[in-house]
C-alpha cells in the first residue's frame, strides 16, 4: 500500500518536473531578442505568427506556380515595347521578372482586410457630397489657402497647438471611457505642461518632454465598445460620417467646455472655435486633398473608402499618434489631428 502511494507520488513529481522543464525551455528559447523588443511583441495585438519551416513551405505545389522572382534574371530596364508600362528612367537597373501569367488561381490573391462600407443612401449622400464640394470650393478651400498664405508657419503651429490643448477634455473623457489610463495620464500631463510652460497651449513643450500628442473622440469610444459604424452618411458642411461617429460628435460637443463657456454668447462668437478648427484642419490637408481630387476617378468613392479606413485605424489605435505597445506615441510634427474631417 505504502509502496503504491510512493509510486504515485513519484509519477506526480516526474510530471511536475517535466512541466517545469517545458515551461523553462519555452521561456528561454526566444531569449536572443532584447527585452524592449519582447515587450513590443507581447503588447502586439493579433494572432502570433504560426508559420511552417521554410523547407516545408517550398514543397507546396501551389506555391511552385506562384510569382517567383529570379535574382539571376536582372537586366537593364527593357524598352516600353518589351515590358509594357515601363519606361527608361535614369538608367536604373530593374529586374526583369514581372510575371505575365499572374496568380494561378483565385486562392493566390489574398482577401480583403478592410470591410466594405455600407452605403444604402448613396444617391442622397452623393447629392450632399456635391453640395459640400461647392461649399469647399467657394469658402473652405479659399479660406485655408488665404490662412496659409497670410499667417506665418510658426503662428499656424501655435494656433494648432492651442486647438489641440482646448480639445483636452474631449480626449481625456474618451481615454477614460476606453479604459486607457496610460493615455489619460499622458493627456493630463500634456495639458498641465502646455497650459503653463506652453503659455496657454501656444507651445507644445510636452512632446519634447516625452508626452506626445494623441487624440480620441466619442465615435472612437463607441467603436472600442463594439458599436458598429452603421451606414455611411455625408453630413452637410461636416462631411463624411456614419450614425456612430455623428452621435459621437454630439457627445463630444456636450463634453467640450467651450460649448458651455460660449453658451449664451452671440452666434458669431460661438462660431469662432469651430470655424477656426475647420480652416486649420482644411489647411493641414490642402496638398493631400489636391492630390486626391486630381487622381481619383470617383472622388466620392475615394473619400468614403479613406474615411472608413482611417476611422477603423483610429479605433484600433493604429493610426499615427499611437503605438500598440505603449498606448500612445508621437505624431509627426507636420500632422494635425482631424477633429472635424473636412473631406
Amino acid at each position, binding site marked *: 500500500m505504502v509502496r503504491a502511494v510512493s509510486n504515485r507520488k513519484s509519477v506526480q513529481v*516526474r510530471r511536475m518536473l517535466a512541466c517545469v*522543464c517545458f515551461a523553462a525551455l*519555452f521561456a528561454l*528559447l*526566444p531569449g536572443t531578442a532584447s527585452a524592449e523588443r519582447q515587450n*513590443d*511583441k507581447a503588447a*502586439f495585438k*493579433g494572432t*502570433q*505568427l504560426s*508559420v*511552417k519551416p*521554410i523547407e516545408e*513551405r*517550398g514543397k507546396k505545389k501551389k*506555391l511552385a506556380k*506562384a*510569382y*517567383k522572382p529570379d535574382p539571376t534574371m536582372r537586366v537593364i530596364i527593357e524598352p516600353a515595347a518589351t515590358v*509594357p*508600362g*515601363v519606361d527608361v*528612367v535614369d538608367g*536604373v*537597373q*530593374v529586374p526583369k521578372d*514581372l*510575371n*505575365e*501569367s*499572374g*496568380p494561378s488561381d483565385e486562392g*493566390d*490573391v489574398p*482577401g480583403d482586410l*478592410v470591410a466594405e462600407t455600407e452605403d444604402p443612401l448613396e444617391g442622397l449622400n452623393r447629392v450632399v457630397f456635391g453640395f459640400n464640394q461647392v461649399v469647399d470650393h467657394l469658402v473652405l478651400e479659399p479660406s485655408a489657402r488665404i490662412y496659409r498664405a497670410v499667417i506665418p508657419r510658426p503662428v499656424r503651429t501655435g494656433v494648432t497647438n492651442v486647438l489641440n490643448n482646448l480639445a483636452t477634455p474631449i480626449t481625456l473623457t474618451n481615454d477614460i471611457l476606453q479604459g486607457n489610463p496610460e493615455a489619460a495620464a499622458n493627456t493630463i500631463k500634456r495639458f498641465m505642461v502646455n497650459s503653463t510652460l506652453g503659455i496657454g497651449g501656444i507651445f507644445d513643450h510636452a*512632446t*519634447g518632454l516625452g508626452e506626445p500628442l494623441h487624440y480620441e473622440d466619442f465615435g472612437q469610444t463607441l467603436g472600442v465598445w463594439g458599436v458598429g459604424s452603421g451606414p455611411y452618411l455625408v453630413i452637410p458642411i461636416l462631411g463624411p460620417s456614419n450614425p456612430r461617429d455623428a452621435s459621437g460628435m454630439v457627445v463630444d460637443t456636450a463634453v467640450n467646455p467651450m460649448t458651455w463657456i460660449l453658451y449664451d454668447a452671440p452666434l458669431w462668437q460661438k462660431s469662432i472655435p469651430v470655424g477656426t478648427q475647420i480652416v486649420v484642419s482644411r489647411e493641414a490637408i490642402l496638398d493631400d486633398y489636391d*492630390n486626391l481630387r486630381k487622381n*481619383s*476617378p*470617383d472622388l466620392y*468613392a*475615394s473619400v468614403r473608402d*479613406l474615411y472608413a*479606413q482611417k476611422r*477603423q*485605424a483610429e479605433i484600433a489605435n*493604429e*493610426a499615427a499618434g*499611437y*503605438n*500598440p*505597445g505603449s498606448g500612445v506615441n*508621437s*505624431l*509627426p*510634427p*507636420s500632422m494635425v489631428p482631424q477633429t472635424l474631417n473636412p473631406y
Partner: protein
Amino acid sequence: MTDIVRPLSRRLFMSLAASAALVPGMAFAASSAESYVSKVGNGVIAAARNNSVSQFRSLLRSNADIAAIAIYSLGPYRKSLTADMKSEYYGLVENYIAKVFQQNAKKLAGEGLEVKGTSDAGDSVLVKSVLNFGGGGTVPVTWRLVKRGGGFRIFDVNVDGIWLASTQKTNFVSVLKKNNGQMSALLAYLRQ
C-alpha cells in the same frame, strides 16, 4: 532516485528535440519576415528621399506581388481581365503604384524603419513597423506579405491607417463601374 531521473531524462530529451524542431522554425519565419520588411523598408525610404519613380519601380519589381495586387484591384471585375491583356495590365499597375509612392514620397522619407512585430492573417503575414522621422515623430506602417516560392512578397502596405491596395481597388472599380466593366477603359485610365 535513478527511477525518477531516467524517465525524466527521456522526457526532457524528447521535449528538447521537439522544441528544437518546432520553435526555431516558427521564430525563423517571423524573423525572416521582419528582416525582409526591414530590408525593403530601408529601400523605400531611400527611394522616397530621392523622390525617384524608377527606384520605386525597381523595388516593386523585386519585392511586390504585382500580379496578385493587379488582380485584387479589379474587385468584382476580375473576370474582365483576359489573357491577352494581362501583360500590359500588370506593367501599367506597376507603373501606377510607383507613381503613387512617388507622390507620397514626403510621407515616406523618414530616418529609419523599426519593425515592431509579426502576426498571421491567414492568407498573409502582417508585419508592423514604425517609420521614424526627425524630432520624435513616427508614422505606423504595416506590411502585408504573401508567401511566394519559399520567401515573401509584398501584397499591400498600410501607411497611417490607409491600405494602398485597397485604395487602389476603389479607384479601379470606380473606373470599371463607370464603363460597364470594360477593361479597355481601365487600361486607358492607367496609360494617362
